[in-house]
Each structure stands twice: as structure tokens, then as C-alpha cells.
């Protein structure tokens, strides 16, 4: 590999083998503050966010419709914000106060779409070389073959883009974007359709690539696992706003907002009212809003600063609930609630069971637990929930 240096940044379009070198270029920070009003059919959506993304992975997390793709489109320049400022380091891409709006083609923002958008009418190699038209042919070849190697798709170079598999397509789409040496990389759930091992390998190659390039990578996902697997930092988007940001651990395990909670894996979320507070025990009792004519369901929860009668939400992870077939005695868990199983469904290696007890709870068990307790729809059970498994959220 002789001289595959890029014109603009001097960074290397390096195959994985070169990344052992010790220089770690630090890319510039992506900083954005933007507002965009979108008028849809009968409803209006406003994206109003301020965030930054340092070199490395930043996860953009949110339900579908939260505005994640619109945000990426604004950064890439495909959608013009109504107001705001987007900059990479000192370089301004968009600034409504100055009337600045750099053309998409000049932003050096790499963007891998959810549907990848490989050019179907040309080969893999021609896809990868598409963004290198300004270079001499020899250099174009060299850089594309280097990136094809780095992403382990050199053997596909002459294949038509429409003929290759899903995982291969993701690699081609990444290579096509990265070979242009972007200053920022936007990934809109490009790996959503892949199985975990394939996804993991691609992420490893991407991390390896970024060790020598050090650019901000904004990675959109709605998968909780991906947040923990990738993120150094996560930004949670809900209804067009940033509702939380921080490390995945901080944001996902101690959520305050209900959106975060649902996304963070609370299968059970209930509206509740504070029935009584017990500061001496550090707990309080919350009454869950029950469906129909069922009796009240009371839960002992950790004490938070909320007066009696105030409205809260309680989130409980399905994996934190125990099931017993007879009323358990001598337990430290404070909440023991009778109920009846309505469904038992095997999902991969866990069993998801729904239990009605005035409210409907989802409970996750192991296959062994299901078999030894002989759980089936109709079984009478007791739900056991620790006080500290009840997470309180604002309503």
C-alpha cells in the first residue's frame, strides 16, 4: 500500500492491517442545534434538538417516529432545518442566522441509509468508487481495493450490487461511504436486519476503521441491545426532542422518562397513585390503575419525593418478577400478588408469560422453570416483586 492518502484530511483509507499504527487522529466534534417543522397528514411534527457528537460512537435512540431520520437528514443536508446551526468543528454546514447552507455534496457527511441505497445498475466496485470521481483512476482503484479488503468484500468487487446478500450489502454500503473519507458518519439502522454475529463482525470492522480516522459516528437504533453493545454515549429522542443523554448505563438503567423506560426494557409500565408514604422504612405504597372491576393492586415501592395522591408511573422488568405456584412464606420481597396465567409463549430460550392480577403483567421465566412448575394458561400463581424492582417515573 503505497500512497493512498486522502487529499483533504491526510488520514489513511487503511485496511485493518494498518490500524496497529499508533497515531490516533481526532476528528472534529459535530455540534447541532436545529428546529424543523414537518407537516404530515393531519398532524404536525416538530423536531427541536440540540446535541453534539464527539469522535466515536454516539447512539441516537428512540421509537419510530421520534425524528431520528429527520435529524440525520438535516445533518446530511437532505432536509433544510427551519432554524439552527450545524457545524463540524469550525466548519459550518448550516447556519440560519448567516444564511449558510452547504450543499449536500460538499458537506463530507457520510450517510448509510436504512435501505442502504446501493446503486443496483453497477457493480460493487463501481458503487465503492462512485464517490471518488475527483481522483485519478489509479488512486481510485487503490483506495477502493483497500476499503474492500478492510471490509472483507474484495471478492465481491465484480458482482452486481443487486445480487449480493444482506450482510454483504451492508458492508458495501459502509465501504462506499467510508472510502470518501467523511468528516462525520451517519448510520440509520443499517444493520437492523442482520443477525447478531454478522452485525457484531461489521461493527468490529467499523470500529477498527475508526481507530485511524476518529470521526463522530451517529448511529441510529431502536434496539436496546445495540445501545449497550455500541454506545459510549446515547442520546434519547422522543417526539422530536432530546429527552435524555449520557452513557448507556446511566440513561438506560435509571430512566426517568416513560419513553426511555419503555425503550429501556420495562415490559410492564403502569399508571399509579401514591397511596401512603413510609419514610421510616424508605418505601411507599402505590395503587395501580386497574382494568375493569378488579380489586386494587397495591405495590410497595422505593420512596421518592412525591406526596400522597400524586400520580406516577411504575415500571417493572419482566425478568425481575418471580412466579410461585403456592403462596410463598418467609420472603424478603414485599409484594406478593395472586394472579392467573393467561398465556405462556416460548421465545427463543426464554418463556414469556402473561399473568392477570387486576393488571396484566408480563413475566419472563426460563424453560426449566416453566416445566418444573408446570405453568400453563389458567394456572393460579403468585407474583413476587421486590420493592427495588419497582421503578418510579414521572407521569
Amino acid at each position, binding site marked *: 500500500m503505497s500512497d493512498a492518502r486522502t487529499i483533504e484530511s491526510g488520514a489513511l483509507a487503511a485496511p485493518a492491517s494498518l490500524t496497529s499504527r499508533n497515531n490516533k487522529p481526532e476528528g472534529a466534534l459535530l455540534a447541532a442545534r436545529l428546529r424543523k417543522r414537518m407537516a404530515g397528514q393531519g398532524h404536525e411534527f416538530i423536531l427541536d434538538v440540540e446535541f453534539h457528537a464527539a469522535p466515536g460512537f454516539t447512539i441516537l435512540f428512540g421509537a419510530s417516529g421520534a425524528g431520528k431520520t429527520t435529524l440525520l437528514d438535516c445533518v*446530511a443536508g437532505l432536509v433544510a432545518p427551519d432554524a439552527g446551526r450545524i457545524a463540524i468543528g469550525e466548519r459550518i454546514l448550516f447556519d440560519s442566522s448567516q444564511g449558510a447552507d452547504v450543499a449536500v455534496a460538499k458537506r463530507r457527511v457520510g450517510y448509510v441509509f436504512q435501505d442502504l441505497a446501493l446503486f443496483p445498475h453497477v457493480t460493487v466496485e463501481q458503487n465503492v468508487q*462512485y464517490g471518488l*470521481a475527483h481522483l485519478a483512476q489509479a488512486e481510485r482503484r487503490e483506495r477502493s481495493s483497500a476499503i474492500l479488503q478492510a471490509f472483507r468484500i474484495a471478492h465481491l468487487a465484480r458482482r452486481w450490487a443487486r445480487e449480493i446478500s444482506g450482510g454483504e450489502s451492508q458492508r458495501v454500503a459502509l465501504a462506499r461511504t467510508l472510502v470518501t473519507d467523511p468528516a462525520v458518519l451517519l448510520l440509520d439502522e443499517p444493520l437492523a436486519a442482520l443477525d447478531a454475529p454478522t452485525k457484531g463482525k461489521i461493527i468490529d470492522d467499523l470500529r477498527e476503521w475508526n481507530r485511524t480516522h476518529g470521526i463522530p459516528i451517529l448511529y441510529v437504533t431502536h434496539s436496546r441491545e445495540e445501545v449497550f453493545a455500541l454506545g459510549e454515549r446515547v442520546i434519547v429522542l422522543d417526539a422530536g426532542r432530546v429527552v435524555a443523554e449520557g452513557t448507556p448505563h446511566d440513561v438506560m438503567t435509571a430512566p426517568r422518562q416513560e419513553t426511555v423506560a419503555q425503550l429501556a426494557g420495562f415490559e410492564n409500565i403502569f399508571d399509579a397513585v401514591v397511596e401512603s408514604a413510609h419514610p421510616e422504612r424508605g418505601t411507599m405504597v402505590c395503587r395501580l390503575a386497574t382494568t375493569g372491576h378488579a380489586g386494587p393492586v397495591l405495590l410497595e415501592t422505593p420512596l421518592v419525593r412525591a406526596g400522597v395522591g400524586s400520580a406516577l408511573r411504575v415500571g417493572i422488568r419482566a425478568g425481575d418478577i418471580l412466579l410461585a405456584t403456592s403462596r410463598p412464606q418467609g420472603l424478603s420481597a414485599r409484594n406478593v400478588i395472586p394472579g392467573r396465567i393467561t398465556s405462556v409463549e416460548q421465545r427463543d430460550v426464554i418463556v414469556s408469560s402473561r399473568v392477570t392480577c387486576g393488571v396484566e403483567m408480563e413475566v419472563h421465566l426460563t424453560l426449566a422453570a416453566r416445566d418444573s412448575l408446570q405453568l400453563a394458561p389458567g394456572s393460579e400463581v403468585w407474583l413476587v416483586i421486590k420493592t427495588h424492582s419497582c421503578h418510579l417515573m414521572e407521569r
Partner: protein
Amino acid sequence: MTIDWQAFWLTLQLAVTVSAILLLLGLPVAYWIAFSGWRWKFLVEAVVALPIVLPPTVLGFYVLVALGARSPLGRWWISLTGHTLAFTFSGLVIGSILYSLPFAVQPFAASFAGVDRRLMAASATLGASPLRTFFRVIVPLSVPGLITGTALSFAHTMGEFGVVLMVGGNIPGVTRTVSIDIYDRVQASDYAGANGTALVLLAFCFVVLVIVYSLNRKAWSVGPAK
């Protein structure tokens, strides 16, 4: 039965010239129609589509007036060349371009609009100018539409009558096309001659369309729709 091969040759020249010009002219017009966000765009679309519904004599009449010695265009042409545009081959070409415009532009625009927007966005994020995106992404993915539009404008020009009669008249070797030749023969009660010429035109147009559509079918199977 004699067939006026001169008229055939002239008609063929006219059709090739017109469809070639329409291919060039139609690309930007179709691009604009497919992608412009201008709110009054539908007015332009309506104007482009007019020749489909307008009687050829109406279109021919106005083209004749516009090309005539009293119009600014006609005067400019006379000052340039010394003779009028009406009743010349060039005048015929202009009239035919207007007449066949929608048959080229509409298939072009429809296939441009059918190209996945994300492919265009991808092209832009990879640093390509709109012009490069047009020629490297939009046009290659619109080949079937381009073939259809060119074939339709070719066939449409081959068979045109009213506009030619109004604008070109009936000058052998200059403006006398096959359809006019047929009309003349019928007027003169030469049904055998009219039938011979008509059959040749029918066969020719059919063969051209069969070739084009078979190519197009291939283009569809080679060039993916999406």
C-alpha cells in the same frame, strides 16, 4: 402500383431527426417536471400535454402562423436565411417536435420520478453534483422510459398528418411525407397505390415498435425497477 420511396425516405428522416431532438430536449424538460417543486408546475404539464388532445390542424395552424413571415420568429428566420420557415423541412421539424413533445416527455418524466429518491440522496452524500447524479444514476435507471418515449415520438412522427399538411404543404422531396402521399392517392382514387403505401408504413411501424418493445422488455429484466 408504384410506391413513393422519396416520401418514405423523407418521413424517415423527419422521424429520426424529431425523435433525436426530442431525446435531448425532453431530458431537461422531463427532469424539471419530475423534480421541480414549483407550485404552478401543473400549468407547464398541461401545456406539454396539449398536443395529445389538440386536433393536429389546430396545432398546425398556430405553428404555421408562428413560422410565417409576419411573426417575430418568422421574420428573424428570414433575416437569417433569406426564406420563410413555413413549407420547409426545418419548419416541419419544428412543428413535429411540438406535436410529439408529450410522447417523449411524459414517459421520460414518469421514469425519472420512479427512481428511488434515496439513490439520488446517496449520490449527493457521496459528493456528486446534481448533473452527475442525473447522468450516472437517474438516466441509467430510466433507460426503459427513455426507450419508450423515443420510440413513441418516432412512431408518432412517422404517422403524423394534420400538422405536416398545415405547416409543410405537399412539396415532393421537401415536405411530402408518406401520410400525405396516401391522402393524395385516395383523393385521386388510386386505392391500389394508397393500399400499397399504407401497408408498407403499417409493416414498418409495426416492426419498429416490436423491436423497441422487445429491447425494452430486456431492459426491464436487466435494469432492475428498484
